[in-house]
């Protein structure tokens, strides 16, 4: 069974540009999460989808970040316009139920210059 996949693995953009990150969860997992780790700091929660609905978006830093999960399958996280402080590793995770552990993807390393 394939794990959680993320694309791209790396992205380098200039301040003010737009970037879209994609996450494909494990097949059949209704729960999808986005997290972010800024250099050397803790991994922080961004938001949680249950199927196509946003269950919890309390961690989204501001309105420059837009997450979607159309059809309840893959998800995208768009940053527009990107700022320097958005640099970090963005992780996606999925789980099959609220009592089960979350399985993480390899992350997308975003660098904003």
């Amino acid at each position: 069974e394939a794990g959680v996949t993320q694309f791209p693995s790396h992205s380098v953009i200039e301040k003010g540009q737009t970037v879209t990150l994609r996450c494909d969860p494990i097949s059949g997992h209704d729960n999808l999460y986005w997290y972010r780790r800024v250099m050397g700091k803790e991994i922080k929660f961004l938001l949680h989808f249950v199927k196509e609905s946003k269950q919890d978006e309390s961690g989204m830093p501001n309105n420059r970040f837009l997450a979607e999960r159309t059809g309840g399958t893959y998800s995208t996280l768009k940053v527009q316009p990107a700022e320097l402080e958005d640099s970090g590793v963005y992780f996606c995770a999925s789980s099959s139920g609220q009592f089960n552990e979350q399985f993480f993807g390899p992350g997308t390393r975003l660098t904003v210059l």
Partner: protein
Amino acid sequence: AQSVAQPEDQVNVAEGNPLTVKCTYSVSGNPYLFWYVQYPNRGLQFLLKYITGDNLVKGSYGFEAEFNKSQTSFHLKKPSALVSDSALYFCAVREDMNTGFQKLVFGTGTRLLVSP
């Protein structure tokens, strides 16, 4: 608010010796605790979790963790370290398994370095 502390940025241990990676937590309700490991250029891998039951939890790759409610700790342990255990370890807590809110709160991570 929930929080997790991993007081050591790095832990050094010789191969074959026991290892401990420390984690303390703060939650207002019942804690649900997790350990994840990140190998270089890889994603986070689940190691083990404590939800309820025995305070000693066994997980993948020979790791175990002990839940101590009075000390609000969930230290990760292994009786005999391997060089291949060298990686970045994250402790995480989730406050309540009975709500729809499932976010994990992570510590800053501890780098484990096992020398031959």
